[in-house]
């Protein structure tokens, strides 16, 4: 089932002397349950594409259709709301709020959304178990390793039950062991919960585990293959 589709999506940065077409006419679609990596050299447009899909940016032209709805036809406020309810994010760094414990970070969004405590506690416990950090839940991010922090970020991204998770270079700061561990957790979530993951990465360790690779160069899709 298709959940995301981009139609002739373009993003051009016109600030510099030569306009940069960061995303240059990309039409691509994603199905529910995918485990996909958008790959390519630095500067090829991965982050820009991911941000456009995530409703964090504004396209120069073209459309992003999520569940049949044109995302950028919504008002900015509606996009924000849509993002909260439907999209989970994992970034390269600064994912977690440093003054909150692991558990508090995971439940943070649910807190803001006013989810009842009982429901929150159950959900947080399940998520922490799934990322294997239940015993570390009272630690603050500063007391966790980089890999553990990213696992908490994944749990946090899943807290609001999103339709899909966008992860921009989630393993860029991690060693191999942590990277594999994080990937295994996400793969398992993908298999057992059918969670959709879309990565932007140039990390070969991620590429190896991804089931679909979309290769970009100069803002264009140059290859789209399924492992």
């Amino acid at each position: 089932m298709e959940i995301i589709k981009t139609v002739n999506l373009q993003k051009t940065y016109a600030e510099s002397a030569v306009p940069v077409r960061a995303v240059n006419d990309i039409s691509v679609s994603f199905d529910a349950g995918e485990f996909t990596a958008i790959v390519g050299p630095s500067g090829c447009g991965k982050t820009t594409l991911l941000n456009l899909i995530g409703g964090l940016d504004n396209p120069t032209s073209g459309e992003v259709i999520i569940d049949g709805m044109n995302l950028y036809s919504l008002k900015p406020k509606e996009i924000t709301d849509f993002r909260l309810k439907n999209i989970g994010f994992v970034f390269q760094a600064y994912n977690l709020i440093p003054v909150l414990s692991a558990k508090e970070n995971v439940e943070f969004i649910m807190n803001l959304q006013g989810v009842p405590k009982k429901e929150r506690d159950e959900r947080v416990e399940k998520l922490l178990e799934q990322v294997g950090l239940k015993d570390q839940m009272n630690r603050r991010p500063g007391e966790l390793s980089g890999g553990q922090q990213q696992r908490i970020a994944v749990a946090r991204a899943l807290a609001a039950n999103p339709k899909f998770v966008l992860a921009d270079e989630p393993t860029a700061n991690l060693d191999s062991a942590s990277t594999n561990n994080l990937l295994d957790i996400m793969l398992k979530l993908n298999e057992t919960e059918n969670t959709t993951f879309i990565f932007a990465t140039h990390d070969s360790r991620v590429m190896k585990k991804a089931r679909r690779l979309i290769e970009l160069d100069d803002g264009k899709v140059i290859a789209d293959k399924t492992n």
Partner: protein
Amino acid sequence: MNTLFKLARRNIWRNKRRTLLTMSSIFLAAFIALFTRSMQFGTYDLMIENTVRLSTGYIQIHDKGYWENKSINNTFEDSPQLEKELSSYKEITQVIPRLESFALASSGKHTKGTIVIATNPATEDSVSKLSEKIIFGSYLTNDDGIIVAEKLAKFLELTVGDTLVLLGQGYHGVTAAAQYPVKGIFHFPIPQLNNQLIYMNLSEGQNFYAAPNRLTSLSIMLKDESQLDDVLEKLKSELDPKKFEVMRWEEMNKELVQAIQSDNAGGVIMLGILYIIIGFGVFGTVMMMTIERRKEFAVMIAVGMRKSQLALMTAIESVLIGVISIIIGILAAYPILYYLYLHPIPLSGDIAEAMTVFGVEPILPFSIDPSLFLNQGITVFIIMIIAIIYPISIIFRLNILKAMRG
């Protein structure tokens, strides 16, 4: 809100040194402000108290038009009804009936214009402690003896036991003339008055001015100054406005009120400058707290926090810093001010002399009026809110992508 509060509470301690430094500066400003204001208000209270006790009382009742034209003809009848009326107020502690006018005093070859105050000796003394100001002889009793102010006595070369001739104009143009034995000589702290005051028994005065049972004023003392407005309102509505005027001490002591107002304005300006300096420091801190967390804020917004929630969080942080500082400031200042309120600092030397001359006790009194603390609290609160306006505008203009990349 709970979550935001928890975040704010933890965030302010992320940079302990900076927060403590900022808090110390607010604390110091609040402490200085409380100390100086307490002293100012204490002094004002003392000046007011002195004036009220020595002259007008908190409220005076006159014959209508008396204050504009202080003539013996603008007097009113001291009716038992009126007395009864006033004694029914539980806020009123004392009522001093006075008949006040001018007279020419002459002794031997000297003659001088004087102010004669005919009063009830006991009530007068209970309010103004006039008997304590007697330097020779004794205080008024119910006989015809008079007491004369020190400088006036000196001018007239009077001593206790001498006789003084008074000459004046009585009620409705009757000539008033009589002679009185001098019972005592008193020192009055206000120089002008020390030159011309004479006190006598009320009934003697009424006889002298041919105004039996008539008064120029009833001075009213209250348990507490805060009752003034209430009592004044009631009196105004109960006394016939065609016959009486009811005035409060401020109307009758305009110079004192002005002196206090201008001194107070000076104090406010000084504190304003102090708080502006502190305000810039606070602004620097909250500004830094915002700028250095831009990336963190961008991620928080991206993962679901609304900008308004973020703004509220930073506002809570700012207010928390202010509130903690001011509470510590008040807790530190209160015991000291309370001690000084109970034990005012005695003054000596030139200042003390100058104060004595103006009828003020030579002490540095302190006030512990709750409004003092409330005002500083509100001031700090407002500063914290003003300081956060610009940082909050930064949050609302924050571009998530730029902030995350930058």
